[in-house]
């Protein structure tokens, strides 16, 4: 029994131990500051390679899953089960001619490629991938994520404005409006959780969930839904993919980008989509905690589960229109997030923390709130069901010949 636990512990901590081993080896011939410096760079490299490497298979995974939703196979030609499809695509994009439109603002146009990709990697730094597996456990963790995440807007805006393309310009205006609006409900919905935790650090959020012995999705189901909805809009994924709006404004902000520049935008988008799943996992689904399997495995299982939900939504839902999108943010999500915050603050004062009773009180408060809103604001019986009028046409009797 103990040996099994030992093995589990070993597997669980394998990456942490590897980093300890590396730093102890380095300590033999480097001064202390040198070790710190090298370890910092090593961590950054690991994160970047993880980010880039995960794209290779997230891309194929997404196309496979969406293929299944759409009754087809998805990529299955290159590599075993088509797993190398993304490599083939990347090679194709890399070998393409690098084009800068003559009318474009050259400096901004080329700089805009890098700007959205930097914050996506920065977010990975504070995500706890497993027990002890966090690159930087900042005390302002979530605030940092919000601050860094909003930088991506600037990159997209730079790209759209400097391209000097009317479709790109429309997309840029949509992007700024959308991303700024959806940041507010996204942050507000997490504030409820932060109230319960009392800290902004991502690691403390995970630990608080172990103290409650329940993931926060049970305590804050409404906040979870609000966060996930707003986050989808924040990373421009369907059904909020207006900045790209393939059927309307063709490709939006990256319409003038080709080859590897286009690939960079794609890269940023995929990592962003993965990081919102990671953040949701950490904040609401208990992060890396789970029985038997190693902690990092649990993190990825949960994050990829959420990613499948993202793909599912992409395969099912049509896109909103720009005015409906803004209405949805300001008239639905923000009031709901504020209401959730108030209820959470109230209940948090009344019930004992870190207990099942408290958790049930939160759940009950949420259920009451959701049902109340559903009954008052969106009653099902009020929804009109439109049907066509059928004008009958009967056959004229035939003379039997």
């Amino acid at each position: 029994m103990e040996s099994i636990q030992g093995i589990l512990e070993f597997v669980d901590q394998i990456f942490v131990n590897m980093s300890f081993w590396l730093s102890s080896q380095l300590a033999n011939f480097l001064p202390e500051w040198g070790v710190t410096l090298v370890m910092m760079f090593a961590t950054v490299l690991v994160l970047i390679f993880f980010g880039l490497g995960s794209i290779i298979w997230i891309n194929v995974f997404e196309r496979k899953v969406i293929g299944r939703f759409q009754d087809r196979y998805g990529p299955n030609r290159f590599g075993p089960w088509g797993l190398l499809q993304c490599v083939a695509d990347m090679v194709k994009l890399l070998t393409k001619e690098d084009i800068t439109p003559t009318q474009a603002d050259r400096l901004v146009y080329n700089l805009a490629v890098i700007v959205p990709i930097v914050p996506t990697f920065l977010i990975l730094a504070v995500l706890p991938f497993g027990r002890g597996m966090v690159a930087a456990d900042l005390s302002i963790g979530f605030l940092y994520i919000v601050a860094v995440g909003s930088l991506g807007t600037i990159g997209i805006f730079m790209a759209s404005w400097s391209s000097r393309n009317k479709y790109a310009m429309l997309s840029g205006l949509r992007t700024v409006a959308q991303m700024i609006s959806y940041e507010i409900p996204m942050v507000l919905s997490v504030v409820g959780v932060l109230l319960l935790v009392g800290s902004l650090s991502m690691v403390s959020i995970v630990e608080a969930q172990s103290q409650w012995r329940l993931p926060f999705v049970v305590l804050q189901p409404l906040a979870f839904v609000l966060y996930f909805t707003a986050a989808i809009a924040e990373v421009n994924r369907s059904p909020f993919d207006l900045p790209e709006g393939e059927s309307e404004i063709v490709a939006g902000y990256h319409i003038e980008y080709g080859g590897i520049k286009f690939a960079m935008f794609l890269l940023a988008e995929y990592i962003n989509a993965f990081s919102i799943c990671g953040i949701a996992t950490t904040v609401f689904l208990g992060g890396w905690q789970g029985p038997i399997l190693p902690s990092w495995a649990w993190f990825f299982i949960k994050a990829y589960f959420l990613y499948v939900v993202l793909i599912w939504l992409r395969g099912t839902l049509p896109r909103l229109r720009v005015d409906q999108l803004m209405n949805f943010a300001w008239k639905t999500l923000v009031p709901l997030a504020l209401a959730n915050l108030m209820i959470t603050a109230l209940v948090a004062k009344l019930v004992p923390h870190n207990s099942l009773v408290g958790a049930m009180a939160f759940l009950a408060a949420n259920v009451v709130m959701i049902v109340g809103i559903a009954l008052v604001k969106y009653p099902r019986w009020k929804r009109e069901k439109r049907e066509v009028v059928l004008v009958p046409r009967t056959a004229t009797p035939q003379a039997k010949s």
Partner: protein
Amino acid sequence: MTELKTETVTINMGPQHPSTHGVFRLILTVDGETVVDVEPVVGYLHRNHEKIGEKNNWIQNTPFTDRLDYISPMSNEFAYVLAVEKLAEIEPPERAKYIRIIMVELNRIVNHMVAIGFLMNELGCFFTPMFYCLRWREMVVDMWEMTAGSRMMPNYFWIGGVAADLPPAFLPQCREFVDALPGFIDELERLITDNEIMQMRCKDVGVLPPDVAIAYGCTGPLLRASGVPYDIRRAEPYSIYDRFDFDIAVGTVGDVYDRYLVRIAEMRQSVRILEQALRDLPEGETSTPKKKKFVAPVGDVYHRIEAPKGELGFYLVSDGETSPYRYKIRAPSFVNLQALPYMCRGGKIADVVVVIGSIDLTMGEVDR
């Protein structure tokens, strides 16, 4: 507070835009996201169809009509063949008439499937409903291949009948299809009709009042969605449509959502017609004796049918030669397209593509 002055921007949409159904160009004048004016530009797919039709002989024109609305080749052939038969006063055998109805109604289902699939594409629901619909189109196309030898350009209708009798496997397969289709339409409706976002995007978008629709000469699902129960199968029954029971689906508001509902309802009605036609299908000849050379008598004729997209008419003039003197087509897509600017003004850019999708254009027919 004074009104903020904004400049309008002209945007060129197409002819290579992904959701203009081929090479169709729009010049949009927008104020922010709001559409001020739309100017459709057609002609990028002009192939001189009507002039070539005058050079072809009467029989050659039948496969040539397949190239008009390539989603619904059977309907095109049907209209042309009926026009020639009216001119030459040929009466096809009973079995051929029924086979024609079966083919044309299958065609209507295919067309509406594709229309709904593309409409959802344009709404941003990329390819999921589209592929579900195409799967059923595929079954019909397989049946066409079995019967006519070609999937998209069947050349099955002949002047005075059909090219060949149905193969033995056709009827069981067609019955199976007709039995299974209502189930799929229910499934499709569960996926799309009650979808909150779909309703938000489609209700009260591109409203076309009945009087305007009539003024523009719109026909087909577009006109019926506006509340006018005008269907040539009912108003002026041609071929043997007077022998079938079916309902004409009519919308109440005339927006994109109504057009979608009308198309769904029409597919269900097509299933009804198919059931009756398969039940009553008589035995016998499928064609009048075929001639290598066909000469229509001197005169002119206009014949119209209710094609899936609207009124499809052929105006033919014969001067007693082997080819028509004049070969003029009244294409439903082209006429319905005229109402596009009216429907788009005041909407958003995203509405424009949805309205185009709801009209159900095929550029092969618009430009000819």
